[in-house]
């Protein structure tokens, strides 16, 4: 039986939730410091903080110039990108699960990621003309196209699988399979017409886990992802009400259409940006909200920010492994998240059969 920790002591529920969030936040900070230190080029922990403080003009200790260059030029933007994307995918997963009222929903499974990838490929292959118009387009065009693709697929899947506010999980998964197949075929078709430069560009992008992160990419990612994060986090009471059903939420005064559109747009923006920055990273959006719910209950007041923090922790840890397991080479991070996530997904399906909690 799933016993919800917080409800047994209702009046301290919020305090317990806040403690959990603070704990996750501390874990993330520790992981960031470790990630900053460990790598192909080791930076001693005692140099990490001085370098960070030095970058904002405070001198608290000594370090070498090489250490500072590696940390500030390569490692820190990558770590921060991992936090944005991991946290964003975790939160988008939680939001989509709440929207579809189903704990098995994940951006990768229902085709949102591949929809984003398809549009991204279209931009890479055919968008070169646009790049000459404005240099800004070369930075923002890819994430915007991926966002459009993600949004279209989200709307499509929702309309296929829902009837009067209820989602049929078997139809949903089948729609995801069909859309993933379709998007894969379309990507292949587009690549067939690509020239060599575009093909090289695509190969680089599709393999490009977090390794390609730099400060300008990080700037774009934060401009696109942060507003979407804020929009979703605000909606926790409405998502709680929607767990009862769209009709019931409407009875309780939730403006269903508004909430749905905000969730569609925000999660597509997050997933699209993540796909364009780092390729498709699977299973974070599925596993993370689940772990939070299993541990601390289903209240979205905790599930939403908790999924952001735990998603950031998981992806940062996966990236730390990816960078160090086969040093000095790197494993693609998607391999590690799938190795952890796919068995967990199988476990969920088996459990879903037994208790439909």
């Amino acid at each position, binding site marked *: 039986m799933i*016993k*919800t920790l917080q409800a047994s002591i209702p009046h301290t529920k919020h305090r317990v939730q806040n403690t959990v969030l603070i704990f996750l936040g501390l874990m993330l900070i520790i992981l960031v410091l470790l990630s900053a230190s460990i790598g192909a080029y080791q930076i001693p922990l005692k140099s990490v903080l001085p370098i960070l403080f030095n970058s904002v003009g405070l001198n608290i200790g000594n370090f070498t110039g090489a250490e500072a260059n590696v940390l500030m030029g390569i490692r820190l933007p990558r770590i921060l990108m991992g936090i944005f994307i991991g946290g964003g995918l975790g939160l988008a997963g939680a939001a989509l699960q709440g929207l579809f009222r189903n704990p098995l929903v994940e951006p990768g499974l229902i085709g949102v990621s591949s929809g984003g990838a398809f549009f991204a490929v279209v931009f890479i292959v055919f968008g070169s003309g646009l790049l000459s118009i404005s240099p800004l387009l070369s930075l923002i065009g890819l994430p915007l196209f991926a966002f459009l693709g993600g949004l279209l697929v989200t709307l499509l899947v929702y309309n296929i699988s829902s009837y009067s506010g209820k989602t049929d999980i078997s139809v949903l998964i089948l729609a995801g399979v069909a859309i993933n197949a379709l998007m894969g075929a379309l990507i292949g078709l587009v690549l067939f017409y690509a020239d060599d430069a575009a093909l090289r560009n695509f190969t680089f992008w599709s393999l490009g886990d977090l390794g390609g992160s730099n400060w300008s990419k990080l700037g774009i990612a934060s401009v696109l992802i942060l507003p979407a994060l804020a929009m979703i986090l605000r909606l926790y009471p409405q998502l709680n009400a929607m767990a009862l059903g769209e009709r019931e939420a409407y009875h309780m005064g939730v403006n269903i259409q508004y909430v749905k559109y905000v969730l569609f747009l925000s999660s597509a923006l997050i997933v699209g940006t993540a796909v364009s920055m780092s390729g498709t990273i699977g299973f974070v959006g599925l596993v993370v909200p689940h772990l939070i719910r299993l541990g601390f209950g*289903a209240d979205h007041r905790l599930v939403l920010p908790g999924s952001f923090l735990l998603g950031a922790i998981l992806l940062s840890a996966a990236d730390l492994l990816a960078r160090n397991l086969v040093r000095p080479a790197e494993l693609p991070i998607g391999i590690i998240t799938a190795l952890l996530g796919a068995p967990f997904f199988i476990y969920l399906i088996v459990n879903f059969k037994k208790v439909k909690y």
Partner: protein
Amino acid sequence: MLQGKNIHFCISDKPIIGDIDIKLEPGKFTAIIGPNGAGKSTLFKILSGDVGCSRGEVLYNGKSIKTYSSQQLARIRAVMPQHSSVSFPFSAWEVLELGTLNAPSEIGQEEITEVMQKLQIWHLRDRSYNLLSGGEKQRVQLGRVLIQIWKKQAFPRFLLLDEPISSMDVSLQHLVLDLLNDLKKRNIGVLSVLHDLSLVGNYADQVIMMKDGDVAFQGEVSMVFTSPNLEYLFDYPIKVKKYDDGLGLLVHSLPLHHINHRLIQAQ
């Protein structure tokens, strides 16, 4: 006052309900009864705002339902549909807490505790909702709906319930209906689809009797809740009697084989 004025509802040009006029007064308990497929649930959905009517209009306190935002509407009326599932492992306490979402003023732990105790679900507070029995789930959902309109207000409000006690045992049914009776004092009009005719006869002030998408009879229970009307409504022999001491009604219907037996004997 909750009014429905010549309400029509069609699904692909086939009329489901046609030309219904009803009035619900605050402080009254109104029951909707009728055979399966009579259009009770459709009328219920139109009154609660889930679906619009093809023609006619629904008025809450004199204003068309269309002029209210979902938030404003949530302060005037609370709705308990027939079945509600919860898609994540929320506890019973948390389900009641959801009712505070648009509660007019700060509704706190005391009110939730009070409602849970009245419905005898306090001991279930930290159980996962989806693991409760049918009757327990109904009481938790009812608790959530009650929380939404629990604080007293100056304006009339309405509670719409679709078969709220169908899975409860008989003592709990009386407990809940007694509680609903108490709500009338808060200037709340209660409208409930019910199947148990003797409960309708003993608790409702007014009754709307539906058949084939129309209102066959409506009015005070003492006036329209009679054997001939019920027999017409359900096409079955039903007897309404007063208890010997004059308190309360006894509604009963004979089993089919007894009726057949008597018919044979009469021949």
